[in-house]
């Protein structure tokens, strides 16, 4: 994994805006409406090429495929794995921060809001070709361009074990490890193809506000420690320097005042076998947490990817603010250990855009400019 040896590198959390016609196709596909698989595959290929070019134009150093062909950063596995079905009319997920404000209306979650994934049989692969298609699309898109590095995101076992309702395995631990066994193959495929692997683990932080809101801190810590163990099991054999680990508190524009504090979970997060830990640091609920690294030492060799751009609002960060944020992180972990990122993705799910696409690209440009300003100060 490249680090910021001469200047502050920039990246983001993986998912990016999808073109409107591709969104239409994805929505049809996700809601079991008719669509043309060949046209879809072709449009995904061209969309990946477009977002790679746009990332480079915007000044992103470590680029992704934008997750253009996935309906969401986690639920994409439904089409890849056996044993998982979508079921309508499930109970909505309760966000404890929103529950406290009963008539605060979050933006509509769309027609598929009450559709949940359910595990009804043994987890296994039904479409191993899907990750190969991601890899091929990304490789083709990278022809003729030279980003500093390239990564592909994949969902963590813990997030799947949390998001998918288990009706098959005897308990949560058995389900978690079954998922870990299977997802390992996707992780290995990404790394063997020469890409950095980003593991998406919202469960380790957001879980405390949603599915695990009723747990005590001690119980929550036990559960996420087990999930990190399962993740490490899935990552066995993969050199940590090929892995970045993204933690997030949920990308919705709710109050977030029930978010678990980074200081209360950082010791567990650092147990993951990853060369980089990637945390939110830009939104106003987590903007102060750079100070956590005053007291917590980043393990030798580990990179800290810090969110310096918020992905929930349409205000575009001033580059000077981005630079200030980077300087805060550099002051506590060292400039060469910091990479600038976005708090979360700009296309977390194909259901809707939280930030207008044109604004998301302008935010990435503001990040690159902020990284340039910070680098000037840090390297003179």
């Amino acid at each position, binding site marked *: 994994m490249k680090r910021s040896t001469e200047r502050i590198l920039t990246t983001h959390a993986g998912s990016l805006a999808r073109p409107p016609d591709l969104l239409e196709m994805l929505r049809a596909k996700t809601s079991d409406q008719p669509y043309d698989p060949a046209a879809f595959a072709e449009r995904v290929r061209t969309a990946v090429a477009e977002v790679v070019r746009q990332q480079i134009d915007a000044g992103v150093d470590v680029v992704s495929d934008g997750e253009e062909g996935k309906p969401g950063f986690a639920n994409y596995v439904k089409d890849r794995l056996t044993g998982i079905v979508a079921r309508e009319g499930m109970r909505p997920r309760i966000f404890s921060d929103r529950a*406290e*404000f*009963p*008539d*605060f*209306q979050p933006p509509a979650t769309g027609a598929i809001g009450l559709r949940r994934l359910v595990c009804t049989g043994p987890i296994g692969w039904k479409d191993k070709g899907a990750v190969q298609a991601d890899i091929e699309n990304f490789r083709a898109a990278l022809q003729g361009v030279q980003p500093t590095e390239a990564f592909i995101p994949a969902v963590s076992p813990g997030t799947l074990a949390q998001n998918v309702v288990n009706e098959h395995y005897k308990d949560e631990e058995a389900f978690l490890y079954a998922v870990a066994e299977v997802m390992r193959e996707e992780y290995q495929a990404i790394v063997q193809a020469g890409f950095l692997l980003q593991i998406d683990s919202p469960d380790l932080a957001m879980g405390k506000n949603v599915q695990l809101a009723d747990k005590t801190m001690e119980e929550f810590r036990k559960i996420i420690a087990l999930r990190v163990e399962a993740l490490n099991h899935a990552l066995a054999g993969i050199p940590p320097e090929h892995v970045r680990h993204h933690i997030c508190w949920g990308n919705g*524009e*709710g*109050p*977030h*005042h029930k978010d678990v504090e980074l200081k209360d979970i950082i010791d567990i997060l650092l147990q993951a076998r990853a060369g980089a830990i990637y945390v939110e640091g*830009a*939104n*106003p*609920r*987590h*903007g*102060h947490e750079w*100070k956590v690294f005053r007291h917590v030492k980043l393990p030798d060799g580990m990179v800290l990817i810090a969110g310096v751009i*918020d992905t*929930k*609002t*349409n*205000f*575009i*960060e*001033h580059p*000077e*603010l981005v*630079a*200030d944020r980077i300087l805060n992180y550099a002051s506590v972990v060292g400039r060469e250990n910091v990479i600038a990122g976005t708090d979360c993705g700009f296309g977390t799910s194909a259901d809707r855009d939280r930030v*207008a696409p*044109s*604004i998301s690209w*302008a935010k990435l440009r*503001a990040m690159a400019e902020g990284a340039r300003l910070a680098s000037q100060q840090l390297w003179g």
Partner: protein
Amino acid sequence: MKRSTERILTTHAGRLPSPPDVTETVRAIQRGESYDREAFGRRVRAMTAEVVRQQGETGVDIVSDGEIGRIGPFWGRLAGYGPRALKPGEDPRQAGTPRGEWKFFPKFYEEYWAAQPMGAANLPLVCTGPISYAGQDAIQAEIANFKAALAVARVEEAFMCVVSPGWLVPGFGHRDEDFQPHYPSEEAFFFALAEAMREEYKAVVDAGFILQIDNPRVVSGWDVPDPRTHRHLTLEEYRQAATLRVDALNHALEGIPEERVRHHVCWGSWKGPHTVDIPLKDAIDIILRVKAQAHFLEASNVRHEHEWKVWQGVRLPEGKILIPGVVAHATNLVEHPELVADRLVRYADLVGRENVIAGTDCGLGGRLHPEIVWAKFQAMAEGARLASAQLWRR
């Protein structure tokens, strides 16, 4: 005006959440429809008491009446200056602010403004004769409601908001048709507006309240092209136009003790990218000309948060108070109290703890869900407590 002598005090930018029925009646009044004046008056009085109580409960020290039931800024309070009918094809939502930033994010703005409610308050204003003040009844009713609400509340201090003369003239640059033939020059027009509005300023101060002047245009006019030429002003032209508006405001404030006045500046509260906002450093000297003891600036949204550093190079004049926004209308996320404290300590380190009061970027009412508004006030109060603990322990 109270200052943070023993701890960091908290306040906000004035407007607070109105219940839906009050908002509905306000819209009906704007549309010229009939309504039950007495029932509406009772409802506004009751809700004013309610928001005063809620401010106390959520830890706000310097409270407002929340502008509950106010019919737009200065609606019906002037003779000789009022709304005109729309020209064919004219969209009033865009009439006031055809912003230059639109061309960079055209689809975003198209969708954003299409979703905004449009009322008669959006109609363009024109001068139809000599300008004079006609709002005594309206302001006295607001004052009476606020006094009644405060009679049973314990607060440090109370303020009421009134807009600046410049607020009523959207768009920068020179527009003869706005004031001719009734006034010979733009300056004469602005000063006539100022003299009329002075009556309301005096009413607020005479009633014993702190007067907050809402003056967004001094910075938010920057991205609005000259209405005659459709050309953007140069920085020099802009500064001249902004200075004229500040001169008019100071004319309006003549005779009002500076220590009864706080001056709120904001870059416009719409939730857009704000990439072309004029930097504070290019307007701070003009802002500081205003004869107010306190200057109240946005400082927590992502476009202006870095501007605390402006105070590394600019000295806050002796005796003045700075009210930085430490929680934002820009997002539903509730600021972490530690982040609020970090922001306050940065300001205190630069201008002195006794010269800082914690505020909100802009009025939160109507811009955030009511429940989020009160949660943000609590976060602000808690952040001010944390900052005070740091600042007074040293």
